[in-house]
């Protein structure tokens, strides 16, 4: 129920409403929950209300976390080939279950 869809503001209608677009759909959105909005802002819309302005993700932080995770994984699995032997039995288990179902 907490579904929220990104929209782009195309017009400011009054002090608490804007028109915003997602794909080809254009809707009226309430902006009461944001301190300021302007045309072009990307907003997250839930049940007719903008709940936050979206901002560009800081890719560097996520990238460094991936590096950390990969480094950790490298210490756990010295032989990369074993990754596949670990994973593939699980997959064949899954497909057997599907066949039996």
């Amino acid at each position, binding site marked *: *129920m907490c579904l929220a869809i990104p929209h782009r503001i195309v017009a400011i209608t009054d002090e608490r409403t804007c028109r915003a677009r997602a794909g080809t759909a254009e809707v009226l959105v309430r902006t009461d929950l944001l301190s300021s909005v302007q045309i072009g802002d990307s907003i997250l819309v839930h049940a007719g209300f903008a709940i936050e302005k979206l901002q560009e993700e800081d890719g560097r932080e*996520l990238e460094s976390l991936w590096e950390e995770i990969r480094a950790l994984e490298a210490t756990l699995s010295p032989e990369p080939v074993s990754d596949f032997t670990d994973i593939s039995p699980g997959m064949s288990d899954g497909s057997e279950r599907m066949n039996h179902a």
Partner: protein
Amino acid sequence: MPERTVPFFGGLVSRPTTLMEVCGTHTVSIFRNGIRSLLPKELTLLSGPGCPVCVTDQSEIDAALSLASLSGVTVTTFGDLLRVPGRDGSLLDARGRGADVRIVTSASQALETALREPEQQVVFLAPGFETTAPSTAAVVLEAAEKKATNFSVLSLHKLVPPVLRVLAADPELAVDGLLLPGHVSVILGEAPYSFLPERYGIACVIAGFEAEEILFGLTELLRQIHTNRPTVRSLYGKAVRPGGNVRARELMERVFLPVDAPWRGLGVIPSSGLALRKEFRPWDATQRFPLPTIPAQEETGCRCGDILTGKLTPPECPLFDNPCTPASPVGPCMVSSEGSCAAHYRYALRGTP
């Protein structure tokens, strides 16, 4: 998002580990994207109490039904809530019997209905967590400003941190990590969850809803657990500010007061609901209309409480698939498309996880 999106779970899971996704939107995305099929067998993924429709108590539906039976009253609410069974059927059944029950997609539509039809008493039945409560608050403030005397709100709003506290303290439920609800966190930020790692040692990640965001979130949970350094980490920075949406919280706090609230299958949880403050009594449906006192729960055999806390999986409920199905639900977890029973029924009934 980096291209390495399917992580190597196997190496990070060194002992049996239990994670829980709190939010129903995560539950559906996990099923739809086949993420369960990627999990090693030592890793258990449970669905939590994060579907507001599913945790709406039968007594709350009964109160809504009693409002809908009053002459001159129009009940407005989100579509999901219409099919949740109360003691005497659902709001949809009541509509079939002639009650004026209407679906809205926003709290503001409910107020617009009241302004357009001044001869009707329009009640907005307001479910939802912190994501939704600020919009109800904004509409109550607007109703007060416009002196709309024929509009009121029956608040079913519930708060996420108090129910997580109940889960964390439950000795039967040893959860190692929580995938926290992304859009509740847009409002709350990170701080309200800090008791989970600090007091209970539970790893926490705020994540988005795309498959790769969920996989990344699960991997980060496993990293925290493996390194034994639980914390609250947001990987949904495009939408979640560390401090949340302060303005939305201010509106919510201006209009509502935390109160003890009943959760379906979980009982009353202290300070886990929101009631309108005294100054907004004219817009509080519980003050304007005579409502039944909370009756004893009808015994349906539904195991919602155990399912919402991850103690049982949906197929373990004796009613699952017979007689409880999405077409004829016994409990709300089967009603809402984001309920864990409905998700299991739709995506995993035939044995494919």
